[in-house]
């Protein structure tokens, strides 16, 4: 699994979206008329924004649009961005709020999206199963078991309410610390803690009976 951000690990700087002088430079370049600066920011963060939007909204098509909207909104407001927060945090606040808002306004679509692929990539559940199968090790039976279990996890994640899901995604998938999550969602750290716990507990309940067979993962602790 992805570990929480280790501030002491210089290799994670920037790549994980931590505050970076590089970002500041690119933002200033964009403000001063050099569009390459913003292009660099897009390419640096597009995967993380996209993945987060996908996990929150549950659909690849929507995640694509939301990612696009988030970057454009951020660009439109770039003149008001004064480096008082990291660009990454600022961008994620926009993206996560867009994703939550979108999810709320498309509640019916949310249910459908898990089983009705509309892109070549397929639905989240399908894509997830495929990726998990590719990544898993061991015999075919184990791979299938892993993929199914992760598929259950993904479904349980989508079944959470919006607030809990956002916190779980930002923490357990994106590896952000409580303070960063609190800032992005504009809530207290104590609220992050309680929502995260409730979210994990709900997923745990949904997986009851399956948890005896933990998938084999590579690269985890």
């Amino acid at each position, binding site marked *: *699994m992805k570990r929480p951000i280790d501030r002491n690990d210089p290799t994670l700087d920037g790549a994980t979206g931590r505050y970076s002088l590089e970002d500041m430079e690119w933002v200033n370049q964009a403000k*001063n008329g050099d569009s390459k600066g913003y292009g660099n920011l897009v390419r640096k963060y597009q995967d993380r924004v996209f993945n987060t939007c996908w996990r929150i909204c549950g659909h690849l098509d929507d995640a694509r649009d939301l990612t696009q909207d988030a970057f454009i909104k951020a660009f439109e407001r770039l003149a008001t961005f004064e*480096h008082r*927060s990291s660009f990454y945090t600022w961008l994620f606040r926009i993206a996560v709020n867009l994703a939550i808002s979108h999810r709320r306004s498309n509640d019916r679509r949310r249910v459908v999206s898990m089983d009705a692929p509309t892109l070549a990539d397929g639905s989240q559940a399908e894509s997830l199963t495929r990726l998990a199968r590719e990544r898993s090790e061991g015999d075919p039976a184990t791979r299938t078991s892993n993929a199914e*279990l992760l598929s259950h996890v993904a479904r349980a994640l989508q079944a959470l309410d919006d607030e809990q899901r956002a916190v779980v995604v930002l923490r357990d998938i994106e590896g952000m610390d*409580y303070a960063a999550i609190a800032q992005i969602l504009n809530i207290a750290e104590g609220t992050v803690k309680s929502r995260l716990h409730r979210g994990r507990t709900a997923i745990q309940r949904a997986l009851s009976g399956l948890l005896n067979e933990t998938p084999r993962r590579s690269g*985890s602790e």
Partner: protein
Amino acid sequence: MKMTREQLEELLSAYLDDEVTDQERALVERVVREDASSRRILDELRQTRDLIGALPSHSAPPDLADEIDGLIERGALLDQPMTPQTAQRSHRGPLRVFLGIAAMLVIMVGSGIWFSAIASKNHQQQLAQNQIKDESSPKAKSTTNEAVKVAGESAGDGSAYTARAGAPAKSTEALRRENLSASKDRKADSSGLAIALEKKLEKDQTFAELKNHSFAGEPVRITLAAKSAQHQNALVSILNTTLRERGVEVVETVASNETRQLSKAQAFVVEGTAGSNFEDVRSRQLIVRAPASALYHATQLAAQGPVPAPLTLTQGTTQWTTDEALLNLQSGLRSQSTVTADSPMLAEETPTLKTPVATERKKETAEKDVASIDSGNGSSFTFLQNVMRLVGVDKATTERMANEMKRAGTAPMEAEGAETPANQRTPEGQAVGESLVERRLRELEEKGPPSAPSALAQTKPDAKAASPTVSPTGISVDDRTVIAPADDPLITCVVEVVLAPPTAEPAPSPGDKPVKPAGPKTDKSPSKN
């Protein structure tokens, strides 16, 4: 007071994430050791967390970045809002390729206009702020004009920045109002949530970006506003020695109960809770990061007395305004009075330094706190550890260093209440009072006067001549204008501030119960099921 089961499980969940205080960690570990059901819950939570983390990630579609580039360019060219609807249509539209090519052909002209507008707007804001300042502060008129002029000259190549203080509070407000007004039209077509978000961003942007910044390898300035001369000296000794061993340049170490220098361009709270020795006192360690000259200048101002107004730092078209609450806190610390802070980072309680209770507590526990460096507990160690973490030293190494220092007796221990000099000297005998800035400016002074505003520190000659106080850098602090060299580095300042607990909140109950409230970080009072 016992915790409910749910509160305990929340704590277990936070423990998994390493988001607990030392006190809470000890509590969890004891509970897990003694209670099999808690141990099982912890295992299940860990398993669930690992499963969620094992979910595969998905990269963005390969053409997404180009698509965003195209939309931005086209929006700039056509001067139309890039609404989500526009965006959605465009990436599926048949004219996409044609529009992209057309946009590329004229992008140089178009984007130049668009971005010029941004730059122009920033410049206008700066001028507006200057105008307000001129109206309300005749004394600062010439200084401010100078600052704006230099900032304007340097905006093109970013070769210099200016730092100035003394702008009335309404300058900041005026600037904020102008920003709100300018973005009103853009907000009109945004969703309610986006409006709320934008307002939030404009209203109380905190300074958390530094929390995710790696300070490894950067020069560090450490200010200890610590609890006693004893552990100030111990910490200074440890920090100076170990940080230098790690190749970290400590540009200045200030340790004094009297000189609580605090100013900021950007800051964040490292730690929210003091160690176990100070159960009724909370400490906050602020990391301040600013261009070296600007930070030094600000601290010089602060050392002269309360800073009545925000400090504005300008670098090219980027402008920060210092957090008023922190400057107010600085004033409060100096006068040892209670200060009410509006800043989000300080809004949880009213900071009170040297309250009778806190002072008494310090005296009672100072030796214990110093000794706690040995055992890796207490606020002193927490502070030390946090500083070390910033520069890439892990907890175990920090602990070992602290123990070695203590055993070797290299950490000087002065008698309680002894006077501590404001500026310490490093083990090498270097006058740490001479900061990187001072050194640089002295070198520049030796070379002769500057030939260009971007070259080195300058002051307005008339103002400097009239100024009764000149800082060691040669900067007139009354002038309140400093123009620093372009290569002046951003430096880091670590400040520890001791805060008394809110009076309305009862102190954590003592005792050694298996389960008890999580201390100051507990969000609400626990209740029984």
